[in-house]
């Protein structure tokens, strides 16, 4: 029994060392496999910068107190990025595509309000797509009502009183960057481990592995270990970027370290499985990217998935990214984003990791039964 265990350890070690050495001879791919997840992280951060607020020019033809109050209501409506300017400059900005709406407060604004007369508020909209345009269509009347609630509290008495669960808001970037870290770990793991596994088939060395008197589980565990070491460089770079450059500091460091390792094992094992099944390195990259992007989107990257479409949420709960994002949000912000809670999520992820390792070993074992063609 002891001999058998020792021989398994030798196989695991030999496989890991062999994979690391082989990968180090392909420096260009090593570099790109580090860059791709980081690139992914930065690109989606750019997407998050949009933030859903409309860059809007406000032209105040009336500088009276009511006009100023309307401007203030717009600024506090969480809907606009306001730029106060002249009519001609606003047109210029619109033509350059730097703003999407112009709101003009007419010269008679204050006088008309004082006399209870009706006022037309001209709003020019660059109605590029209906989603963004409707945001503006909703936001202007909203700002008007808020303005009335402050300027004429006896006329507009109904108002919203907000109570927050957490004592401070977490910025969109601070939230999404944690989700991005999870998907970047997924992408890095799939790319590295998938390529290592597929390389055996492309170069024909899989025959030697299969004919070797070694347990398929030990071989796959060795490959997983090798890929873990190789993909750790991209994970370290990512943590440096998120924590030290972007400044999102985890509240629970010990959880972060443990969860990073857990997720790396899960996705490196998944990558080994993909590489074993598709056997072509050329296909590993598009498949990894093609899988990661939609899974990331449905798994609650932007907020709890269970608040979204029920069918999508049900699908999301069948795969590990959903639980990965949840436990990372807990490690960084102490948030609970699933109904199961971080403790259960962690156990589910351990189950996914064990299943991935076992299935990839079975896939390698079945190659032995089917024979190898490449």
């Amino acid at each position, binding site marked *: 029994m002891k001999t058998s265990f020792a021989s398994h350890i030798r196989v695991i070690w030999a496989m890991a060392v062999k994979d690391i050495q082989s990968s180090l001879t*392909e420096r*260009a*791919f090593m570099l790109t*496999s580090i860059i*791709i997840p980081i690139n992914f992280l930065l*690109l989606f951060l*750019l997407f998050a910068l*949009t*933030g*859903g607020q*409309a*860059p809007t020019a406000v032209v105040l033809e009336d500088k009276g107190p009511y006009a100023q109050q309307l401007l203030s209501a717009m600024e506090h*409506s969480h809907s606009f990025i306001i730029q106060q300017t002249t009519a001609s400059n606003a047109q210029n900005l619109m033509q350059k595509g*730097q*703003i*999407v709406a112009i709101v003009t407060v007419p010269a008679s604004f204050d006088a008309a309000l004082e006399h209870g007369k009706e006022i037309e508020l*001209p709003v*020019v*909209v*660059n*109605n*590029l*797509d*209906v989603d963004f345009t409707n945001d503006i269509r909703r936001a202007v*009347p*909203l700002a*008007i*009502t808020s303005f009335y609630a402050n300027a*004429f*509290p006896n*006329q*507009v*008495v*109904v*108002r919203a009183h*907000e*109570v*927050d*669960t957490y004592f401070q808001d*977490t910025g*969109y970037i601070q*939230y999404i960057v944690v989700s991005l870290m999870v998907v970047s770990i997924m992408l890095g793991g799939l790319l590295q481990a998938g*390529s290592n596994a597929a390389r055996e088939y492309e170069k024909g060395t899989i025959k030697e592995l299969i004919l070797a008197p070694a347990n398929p589980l030990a071989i796959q565990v060795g490959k997983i270990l090798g890929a873990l070491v190789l993909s750790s460089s991209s994970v370290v770079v990512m943590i440096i970027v998120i924590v030290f450059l972007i400044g999102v500091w985890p509240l629970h460091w010990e959880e972060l370290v443990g969860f990073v390792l857990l997720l790396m094992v899960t996705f490196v094992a998944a990558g080994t499985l993909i590489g074993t099944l598709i056997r*072509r*390195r*050329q296909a590993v*990259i*598009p498949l990894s*990217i*093609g899988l990661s*992007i939609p899974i990331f*989107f*449905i798994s609650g990257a*932007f907020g709890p998935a269970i*608040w979204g*479409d029920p069918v*999508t949420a049900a699908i999301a709960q069948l795969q590990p990214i959903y639980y990965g994002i949840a436990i990372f949000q807990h490690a960084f912000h102490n948030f609970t*984003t*699933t*109904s199961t809670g971080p403790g259960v999520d962690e156990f589910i992820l351990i189950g996914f990791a064990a299943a991935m390792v076992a299935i990839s070993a079975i896939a390698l074992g079945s190659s032995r039964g089917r024979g190898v063609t490449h």
Partner: protein
Amino acid sequence: MIITSSIIPIFAIVRKDIGVWLRQPTAIAATVLPAIAFMIILYFGAQAVGRNPVALVVQDNGPHAHELVKILSQSDAFKIVMTSSTPERADKALKQLKVAAVITIPNNFDEDYNAKKSDPITIHINNLNLDFTNDLRRSLPAAITEFYADKTGSNGNTSPIQIHVKETDIRTQDIDLMRFELVPNLVLLLTTAGMVNAGLATAREWEDYTIKELLLAPISRTILIVGKLLSGWLTTLLIAAVVLLIGAASGYLRPENPIYWISTLVIILLIALASACLGVAIGAAARRFQIVTAIGIPLSIDLFFLSGGITVAAFLPGWLQTIAHFVPTFYGTHALQMAIFYNSTEGLAVDISVLGGTALVAGVLGVLSLRRSMLV
């Protein structure tokens, strides 16, 4: 005679490359997977826009409270998943993450409204992140706005709100999010197809050692280079043709005025040419499949994002808009959106100039890279 002797080998190279590509499902998958992935994202994104689940606690049975409940229930900003008269159930749902917020209409709502006293409605928000929180912050005042707008005519009273929005749209029609984002996705498909397919076709000559046969063949290197560039371009256009045919048949990518087909096709030809030339340059420099896909796909996605692929460029911060203006696909996306959706040639001259210049630079890069690799 000279022309014919040049055309035959060029045609042979093109036919061989397209034939090999058609027998490579992984190459086809590598081309279409990123675009399909982003389409899935757009679909889910469009479904999820601003519809957070909310619990409603109604403690007043008066007519105004009922009116507000009706407006909240019909709101397109959130969905009411639970209504109760006591707060306990709603608070429990908030703690269990079944709802994102709890809105409470207090028991003196009608009384305060009629007495014109301050009449607050409480919204308890799970403020996990600013995006969701701001959606909810906007949604209740939006419902209050509608509540006041409903005052006119419904009960004979005049709304206290005397400011009315007079909207002027600068485009002839609104385009829905999914359709609007189809254009950057088409550009993504073209750039991926050009870079990956032309890159793979070029790298394949070195991976399979067939470059030796090509170099030893009794043809000039110029013919060889033209053949490789042309095959990359035609392969890309083949994919573009399929997408355009489907888009035109379904109406999603059909310019309303047929004259705009001209600018649409010119832009597509230029994007395909620039991408294919860049692909040849990458393929000749890398000489490896794996590196071509590792560079080509992420580069295409970078260009897609920076040209406003997943959002509207006008909503990006100023510094990012400035960067976008240095990205050639930004001009391609802009020109196609103007032609297909708005029957407009706004900025077309600049768009064509930038894309033409990019195709020229990419062509020079492709030629130089191929010539250099053939010599080594």
